[in-house]
């Protein structure tokens, strides 16, 4: 019968229409911004710079190695290395970025900067409501705008942050053990050095 296919199709739309009153899987619309979808943990948007401790300037992990600047495909990171060094979270003196700018109007959220950073200093944010009326200044983020605390990182990417924290703690422990061993070796060496002349003296006597 001509029109049977159309009727079948209409039955289908009717099923979806009525079904949307009872089943969530047929009514998937979310009334943004009043209602929001749950955040997906792996989501990424634009990069931010992680800092440890309370002071963002003091605790910034970035040591200004310029790797991310070089590897960023659209070249939207711009870094100027500091002339002096400041102690990082472990107290080791390190360079820091005097200028760290990301032009987020160019950034394509590829997270290659995150992948190549050897210091776990740059990570991806999940913030997406970023509209601004200033096309140039508002989308060129400096290091203050980019700085986010490690607590924030733990909050948005718990699994990933836990792994990073563990790995950093391990590195730190290794470093400490090494410096301790070095210190011990040094002190025992000095002890030996101080012991030797004494024995020498004794032998002389």
């Amino acid at each position: 019968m001509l029109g049977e296919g159309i009727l079948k199709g209409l039955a289908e739309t009717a099923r979806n229409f009525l079904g949307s009153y009872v089943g969530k899987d047929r009514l998937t619309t979310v009334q943004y911004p009043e209602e929001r979808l749950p955040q997906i943990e792996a989501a990424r948007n634009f990069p931010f710079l992680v800092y440890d401790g309370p002071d963002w300037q003091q605790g910034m992990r970035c040591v200004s190695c310029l790797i991310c600047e070089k590897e960023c495909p659209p070249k939207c990171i711009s870094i100027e290395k500091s002339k002096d060094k400041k102690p990082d979270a472990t107290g080791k003196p390190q360079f820091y970025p005097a200028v760290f700018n990301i032009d987020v109007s160019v950034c394509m959220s590829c997270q290659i900067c995150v992948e190549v950073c050897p210091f776990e200093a740059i990570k991806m944010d999940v913030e997406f409501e970023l509209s601004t009326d200033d096309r140039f200044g508002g989308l060129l983020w400096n290091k203050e705008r980019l700085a986010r605390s490690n607590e924030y990182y733990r909050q948005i990417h718990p699994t990933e942050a836990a792994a990073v924290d563990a790995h950093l703690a391990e590195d730190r422990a290794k470093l400490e053990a090494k410096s301790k061993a070095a210190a011990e070796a040094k002190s025992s060496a000095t002890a030996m050095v101080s012991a030797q002349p004494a024995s020498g003296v004794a032998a002389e006597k």
Partner: protein
Amino acid sequence: MSTATEAVRLIPKPTDSHECQLLEVSMGPQHPSTHGVFRMDVALDGERVVKLKPVFGYLHRNHEKIAETESYLGSMPYTDRLDYMCSLTSNWAYALAVEKLAGIQVPERAEYLRVITAELTRLQNHASLIGFLLQDMGASGTPLMYAFREREKILDLFEALTGARMMCNYMRFGGCRVDMPAGWLQQAQKVVDAFPRFLDEYEQLFTENEILMARTQGVGVLSGELAVNAGITGPMLRASGVNYDIRKVDKYGIYERFAFRVPLGDHGDVYDRYMLRMLEMRESVKILQQALRDIPPGPIMDPKTKIRGFRPKAGEAYGRTESPKGELGFYLISDGSSNPYRYRVRPPSLVNLTVLEGMCLGQNVADVMAILGSVDIVMGEVDR
């Protein structure tokens, strides 16, 4: 050639035998049914198309030139933007070409992840393509929204795995970037299990619809012979009855492990292309069921391949995959430095448009939309 501003003009009649004048219409580049900024210079004799010249380049950014200045890794996120509906298959094609160039082995788990993400991509591409096709023919909204509702579930899977919904940037030379998070496999299984029901409903909606049949059967017929000669690939080729699926022919990745069939069309018209995509989705579901069942534990990256400072030896390689649009290939020439000497994308969407004029000649102007919709193009890939 007329410019876009003078969209319609009369052409002096070519011969005296014509009683009416030809009307030249510029369809696009902002026409809603051209799937992006694409223009067709169409000459009409009444309702009939007598000339159709596609005009490209509105989205041209010289992706290939950019890639020559980027490191090998740096081009990976750009491949997402070729066919922005199917970033994961583009990733795979590029990774495959680089792996051929440098002789890299991919661990088994990564191969499975690639198959799973690629087939999910195929599902969402075909589903939304059918939605767009029907939208172009006047079924505003409903089919497309049903397709997008399902696509959304797949994009959620992509976001949970790769971090992004469309610009996934997921594959790396020698593997994949991250492993699946906890619970992802179960979630994917749920989506895949529910998909056939959606396909049944979708088919219920259209397959026997008299209007759809009247608009598509016998329209835009493409013979198998011409399709082969014109380098048509993908669903469009198979709708013309040529059995050529690179997943079967090249058996790249681990496709030989999966049991699936290659659907073929009989008539090569728009309806066959629609139907073929429906059937292909069902085959993709089969592949997904097997892959989700069999995925082994293990590493996801080849340990010998470095992320940074990747320099393949001098040489060249052409790697190709069956992307949802057709044969997507990458041809790379290395001179031993850290960026490719030549980087070529073989875009299926562009080559598939070769026969557009031939399919449209003699058809009604309203059929042009249906024919173009059934080709399945994405301008990001056509113009590069």
